[in-house]
């Protein structure tokens, strides 16, 4: 019955094959596997090639001009004869918009991630995630176009009022909160209930007046500001922060999800509110994952080309004063994109190679931060699984 096809004779030798056939099988298997390996290692080969080819064209620049000028001077006149290749202002510009976008995107992104993982009900979360994915999918050139054609004129024409409104909307709730918390903390030591209540109310009123005065003062100053050009570091920082947000939100949400339910339940069981649970137990446990998310998000802002090229104003200067986000700046990526077209004609000149030097700088920064974030993620996974 068992072998309708096979009788007694091939029953015994059914699965044992000749040595030669077995060797052939093994060789074929190894060959197939190594072919797959070759394809898989193609990625590694590409990474090496990228480093090699960018570095190969970057080194001649340092041979011709040395390191000092590139990193310490901000005179960028590559087209002159002899040209000047001080990239300090450009590097500073890159760092400036990266920092600016991080200042906007990190608090917002982490808050949104917390909201997605801990606050919103699952039914809403289901719809929020695709929206974030859509935001991530919008091409950078569309963001750049928006920055140049919509946001820049808005900033240029109504910059002061916009800044004032942003100040009021974004800052006043937090100031109000600070007033409440501060007056509570200051009166916490008074033991007698009646006196404490009186003191509490007095402090509340006092601080409220103080803070409204402060908000109003700063608001008027902001209202008076005239933005000379809409294509400036602020514009770019805002747009870049939107581009970095999806990465920050989704990676930190994963990190927060990885922090188990039991930790949260433990905290709730001790009488903590949701905010306290999240701030004091969940965030510390997921902190390294969030750090990795922040690094990835910042890298997206640093490596972004089209938005900064279109909307940063492309002027190679360190703003006066150095934190003035309302002036035009220039970044590494935009310089590469903008100057390659002309420099391409004069292959071999410092003007061509300096762009590769900038590319190498970007490449090294991204490589290092990638490595760091990867380490962090691995470490967090180890810590969490160890618990």
């Amino acid at each position, binding site marked *: *019955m*068992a*072998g*309708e*096809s096979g009788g007694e004779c091939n*029953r*015994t*030798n*059914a*699965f*044992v*094959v*000749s*040595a030669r*056939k*077995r060797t052939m*099988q093994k060789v074929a298997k190894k060959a197939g596997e190594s072919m797959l390996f070759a394809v898989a290692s193609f990625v590694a080969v590409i990474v090496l090639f990228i480093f090699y080819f960018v570095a190969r064209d970057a080194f001649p620049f340092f041979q011709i001009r040395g390191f000092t000028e590139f990193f310490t001077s901000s005179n960028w006149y590559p087209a002159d004869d002899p040209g000047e290749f001080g990239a300090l202002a450009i590097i500073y510009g890159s760092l400036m918009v990266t920092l600016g976008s991080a200042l906007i995107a990190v608090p917002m992104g982490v808050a949104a991630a917390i909201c997605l993982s801990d606050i919103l009900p699952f039914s809403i979360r289901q719809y929020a995630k695709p929206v974030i994915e859509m935001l991530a999918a919008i091409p950078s050139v569309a963001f750049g176009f928006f920055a140049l054609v919509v946001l820049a004129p808005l900033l240029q024409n109504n910059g002061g009022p916009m800044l004032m409104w942003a100040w009021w909307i974004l800052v006043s709730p937090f100031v109000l909160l600070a007033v409440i918390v501060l007056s509570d903390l200051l009166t916490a030591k008074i033991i007698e209930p009646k006196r404490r209540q009186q003191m509490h109310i007095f402090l509340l009123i006092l601080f409220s007046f103080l803070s409204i005065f402060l908000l109003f003062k700063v608001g008027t100053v902001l209202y008076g500001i005239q933005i000379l050009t809409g294509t400036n570091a602020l514009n770019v920082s805002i747009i870049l922060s939107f581009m970095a947000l999806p990465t920050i939100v989704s990676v930190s949400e994963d990190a927060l999800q990885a922090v188990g339910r039991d930790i949260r339940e433990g905290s709730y069981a001790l009488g903590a509110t949701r905010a306290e649970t999240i701030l004091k137990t969940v965030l510390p446990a997921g902190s390294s994952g969030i750090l990795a998310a922040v690094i990835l998000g910042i890298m997206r802002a640093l490596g972004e080309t089209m938005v900064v090229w279109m909307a940063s104003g492309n002027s190679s200067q360190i703003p006066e004063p150095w934190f003035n986000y309302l002036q035009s700046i220039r970044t590494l990526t935009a310089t590469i994109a903008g100057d390659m077209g002309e420099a391409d004609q004069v292959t071999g000149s410092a003007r061509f190679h300096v762009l590769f030097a900038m590319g190498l700088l970007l490449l090294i920064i991204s490589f290092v931060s990638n490595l760091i974030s990867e380490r962090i993620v691995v470490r967090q996974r180890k810590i969490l699984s160890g618990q």
Partner: protein
Amino acid sequence: MTMDARESSGSAPAQKATRDMYLPPERKKIADGGTAHISAKEFSVYYGEFEAVKRVSADILSKYVTAIIGPSGCGKSTFLRAINRMNDLIPSCHTTGALLFDGQDIYGKFTDEVLLRKKVGMVFQKPNPFPKSIFDNIAYGPRLHGVNDKKKLMEIVERSLKKAAIWDEVCDRLDKNALGLSGGQQQRLCVARTLAVEPEVLLLDEPTSALDPKATAKIEDLIQELRGSYTIMIVTHNMQQASRVSDSTMFFYEGVLVEHASTAQLFTNPKDPMTEDYITGRFS
């Protein structure tokens, strides 16, 4: 050569004695029963350093149903999966000793595990039909082994489904997705799928643990139907099931084969105190 040497090493009277031990006292006689189909000799399975199956020696008789019982993590599943080399999927897994199938070493140098698995079919804990039609599920194996003729495939499918006692339930929807069947039906489909490649041995790894009592009864009936046609090994947690369906039973504890005897004997008169403790429910 070496194989012959090994085979002749087991002396005839000793084999006779053990065989009698496993024989069922009051069951229908099985023609061609009673010869060792699979035999383990000092057979061990390691996961890295850990010895999951410890120097097991046993003969599994041809055409009989052998049940393997024991507490969780005792190595019973590992032993079962060693027979058709499913443990190869785990990279750190290796074996010592000998495991013979029809006198040939399963872990021999020249063993083609693909041909071996064709001879030794397996049904898993959870029903695992492919996300394809019922027909394609059954025809998957025969197609692999070179049957492409539509008519012939249809014959095989029908025969296998009939053998697995599920033909009547699915004959009108062979082109429907197999995932649409109930759990019990899926499991019988998996049996049919295994039968379609015409194996000699059928390994059942807790085939009813994911099923409700009614579906379980159907599977047990099916095992009774197949008894006598295939060498069947079934791992089970359920001692009643073992006593219902099997001819002989092996009791594993911490990787060691504690006792191997005919089912009637093992459940009524166990030799080892540990076996007795287990079957009387003193530990599990």
